[in-house]
């Protein structure tokens, strides 16, 4: 029995064999026991990939730990696989390392098909060369002792194996199985309980090692969900009752969840004919007094830009959630990238200042929706919330939100408008102005995307244009004044400061902590507001010898041959911070399509401050990512 403070488990199979169900259950049970948990769905690129396909892995990665878990971790410690081929798609993304223990279905060794037998043998030899430790397991044979159709039970048998490996209480799992299969009747529940028990006992009898992760139960109640569900719940808790969208991965699941839940909470999802119509519809609703949300990803954001410009120009509150994926063009639809920061800030005809925020955690995916709706209304304009595929599909625990009345939008104001108040009565200092809503007597005005004066009259006058641009821009400074400087993780000063935004924050924090534990003088800071930027950044940067960003978007390293410094292309946050602070900020970024594991970040940080690599660090994952 080995005691560890965290562990990474993966369970993978051909699609349809149920590893996702088993993985999710293992995650839920772990959370219920009081562990910190982060799970990532492993989804094949195609809907129905052929069996035993290298591109077809389906399953889950589950990272558990004594402390809260804030990212997906490094190479897996334990892997359960229903065939050897699906493991290759995980190898491609650097999911395993030297010492990874793989429990592998061994029925392929005796398969009637000679080709399959050979593939299996070749893979075993290859895995050994790669330094993995493989345990061949008669999964099918064991399952058939309990049920007639092994394909439909292997997942729960493996759940049993896994729970025995980590000494989980079988009674707890029994209750979970009952819940999971409740609707399928007692026969199915009993069969699954038998499978679970068989897997559990098989492990106890045949596996001569095990792990213990100490539990530190936390106070209070927690919820567990992924970032898209958190955003959907946040939309509801913010009192928004219209989500207008056009399907696009990886954003769509927000609307899937909302479409079902709105029936219970009062609201509707409008699936428009395209992204332009989706935002136009949302803008119509917002104009009419009900701030709406539109949910999309990069290609959809591109289509929405003209309407975003209109919302800025005519000051219509609106929440735009952008779940980023790999670009440009159709890019990597299911993969992770943070490539839409500059597009969010600047893509519009002319200057269109707007609020842009980025949650760092799944809990923030929930809470930022409430903030975003309020900011959109108070600052009378669109608010873009940038998340990404990593937050969207990663699941973790956070404190149960207690929904408050103050989170909800107030009812549509239909009181009489004061006739002497103009529709854009800009305050000279703040740029803010009250907004008449259709139905308010004496408030009638004609909203226009053309340059206009305080009365919303079309105005080509140069002074009026200069002044109205200034008033709209001023709103960002008003918000900036009310923001707090960001919190630096680690010491207040040192050799290196890592700046990040969005989903990379958790992995960067973990990497920084590891290097600090080894004596490195470095800290990190994660920005939640990108427009306006949080205050005090330059002061923070000045206290560090070097400042760099780590991001998942394209950039070029300083030392890459053929790239003159004057023409070097920086990652997007670095670009923005260099321009706004005039600090010589460096960057390191990857567009590998996967979340940056803490170990990879750690290796780069050590290189930056001339600290030797951690002994035993797995250079393989780094090599896999670096290409």
């Amino acid at each position, binding site marked *: 029995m080995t005691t560890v403070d965290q562990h990474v488990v993966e369970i993978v199979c051909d699609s349809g064999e149920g590893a996702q169900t088993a993985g999710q259950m293992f995650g839920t049970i772990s*959370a*219920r026991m009081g562990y910190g948990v982060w799970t990532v769905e492993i989804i094949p690129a195609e809907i129905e990939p052929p069996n035993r396909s290298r591109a077809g892995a389906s399953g889950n990665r589950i990272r558990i730990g004594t402390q809260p878990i804030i990212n997906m971790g490094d190479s897996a410690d334990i892997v359960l696989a229903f065939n050897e081929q699906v493991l290759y798609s995980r190898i491609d993304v650097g999911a395993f390392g030297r010492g990874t223990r793989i429990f592998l279905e061994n029925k392929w060794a005796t398969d009637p098909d000679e080709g399959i037998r050979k593939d299996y043998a070749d893979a075993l030899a290859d895995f050994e060369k790669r330094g993995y430790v493989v345990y061949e397991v008669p999964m099918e044979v064991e399952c058939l002792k309990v049920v007639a159709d092994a394909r439909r039970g292997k997942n729960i048998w493996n759940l049993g194996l896994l729970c025995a490996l980590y000494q989980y209480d079988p009674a707890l799992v029994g209750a979970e199985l009952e819940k999971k299969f409740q609707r399928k009747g007692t026969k199915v529940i009993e069969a699954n309980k038998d499978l679970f028990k068989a897997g559990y006992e098989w492990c106890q009898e045949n596996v001569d090692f095990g792990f213990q992760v100490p539990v530190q139960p936390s106070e209070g*109640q*927690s*919820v*567990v*969900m992924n970032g898209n*569900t958190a955003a959907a*719940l946040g939309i*509801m*808790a913010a*009192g928004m*009752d*219209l989500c*207008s969208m056009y399907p696009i991965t990886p954003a769509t699941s927000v609307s899937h969840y909302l479409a079902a*839940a*709105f029936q*219970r*909470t*009062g*609201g*509707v999802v*409008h699936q428009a*004919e*395209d992204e*332009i*119509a*989706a935002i*136009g*519809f*949302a*803008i*119509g*609703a*917002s*104009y*009419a*007094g*009900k701030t*709406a949300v539109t949910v999309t990803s990069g290609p959809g954001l591109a289509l929405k830009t*003209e*309407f975003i410009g*209109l919302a800025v120009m005519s000051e219509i509150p609106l929440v735009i959630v952008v779940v980023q994926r790999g670009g440009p063009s159709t890019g990597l639809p299911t993969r992770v990238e943070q490539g839409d920061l500059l597009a969010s800030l600047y893509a519009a005809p002319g200057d269109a200042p707007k609020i842009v925020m980025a949650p760092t955690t799944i809990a923030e995916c929930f809470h930022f929706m409430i903030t975003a709706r309020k900011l959109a209304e108070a600052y009378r304009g669109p608010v873009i919330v940038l998340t990404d595929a990593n937050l969207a599909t990663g699941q973790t*625990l956070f404190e*149960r939100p207690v*929904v408050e*009345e103050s989170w909800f939008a107030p009812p549509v104001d239909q009181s009489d408008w004061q006739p002497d108040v103009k529709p854009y009565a800009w305050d000279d200092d703040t740029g803010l102005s009250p907004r*008449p809503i*259709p*139905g*308010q007597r*004496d408030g*009638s*005005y*004609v*909203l*226009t*995307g*053309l340059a206009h004066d305080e009365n919303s*009259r079309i105005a080509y006058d140069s002074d009026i244009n200069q002044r109205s641009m200034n008033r709209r821009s001023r709103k960002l400074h008003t918000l900036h004044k009310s923001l707090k400087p960001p919190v630096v993780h680690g010491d207040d000063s040192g050799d290196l400061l890592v700046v990040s935004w969005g989903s990379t924050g958790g992995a960067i924090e973990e990497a920084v902590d590891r290097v600090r534990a080894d004596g490195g003088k470095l800290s990190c800071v994660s920005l939640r507001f990108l427009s306006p930027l949080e205050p005090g950044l330059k002061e923070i940067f000045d206290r560090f010898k070097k400042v760099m960003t780590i991001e998942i978007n394209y950039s070029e390293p300083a030392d890459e041959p053929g790239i003159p410094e004057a023409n070097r292309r920086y990652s997007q946050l670095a670009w923005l911070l260099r321009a706004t602070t005039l600090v010589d900020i460096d960057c390191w970024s990857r567009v590998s399509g996967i979340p940056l594991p803490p170990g990879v970040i750690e290796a780069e940080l050590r290189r930056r401050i001339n600290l030797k690599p951690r002994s035993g660090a797995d250079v393989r994952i780094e090599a896999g990512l670096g290409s």
Partner: protein
Amino acid sequence: MYGLKLDWDPEPETKCFVLQDYQGLEPRWCPGCGDLAVLAALQRLVRDEQIPPEKIAVISGIGCSSRFPHYMKTYGFHGLHGRPLPIASGVRSRRPDLDVFVITGDGDCCAIGTSHWIHAIRYNMNMTVLMLDNNIYGLTKMQSSPTTRLGKKSNTHPRGTILGPLDPISVTLSITNASFVAQTVDWNPPHVLATIRAAHEHQGLSFVRIMQRCPHYTPEIWTEYQQDPSCIFLLDHPDGIPVDAGVARLFENKVDHDPSDLPAARDLAALDEVIPIGLLYRNPDAQRYDLAMHEGLDMPLDDRITAAQAEVDRFLI
């Protein structure tokens, strides 16, 4: 309220609206522009119906015709080129209490806004859509539009257009769930008013194509029809658009057309050289997407809070 009626009750709080209450800025269209006639008709309609100005939203795209909302003294939304229909649908989705009018041009609706046109017809949300068809891009100075006639010279086709026009009525009639399709000519004010009145009364999306004079760029296109009203077929039917004796007298060519007869409507729309005016098609039973959208709108705040908490709690561990 309006005029002396036997059932009139003194209502000191109720204001009687007059035309001026709906008149916004001085129109800046060219003299003789057909848009002026449509503006006058819409102002008369809402005055006749005594709709409080604040309960009206006039939503347009971009173009000469789309300047329309500025000339009304109601709530207005002069949005993006081609996009008034999604905006209007969004307004309608949250505000069943407002009267929504959409003003669009032949370029706005039949070129850049085509997908929204098709889908708005299918959504059939309650609103009145007036498509002002001058067969040209007016605002941007005489480029061909999808409805420009074959051979007409424009700035983008100086030797004449290459393709014949797209027929908006045939297209609209072909869209699943179309519920009200009518056509009128701006130079006959009583018919314009009667048509938009029927359109406004209709529950669902009513699409009205208005042949619009543009003396600036297409002065010649309707002259023949103006000079010889027999080129115009007046659709005549008890279920159609009621017309007064003057209109009936002017348009001597009448076609007895039952507006529930879709194949007959399509045949009429396909006729060359003549313009059928009146109600081509009405289906009061077409599905209404806005009614589905309104579900839950009246849910009390306390219930919403409780329901949202229950949703959160589904994820408790």
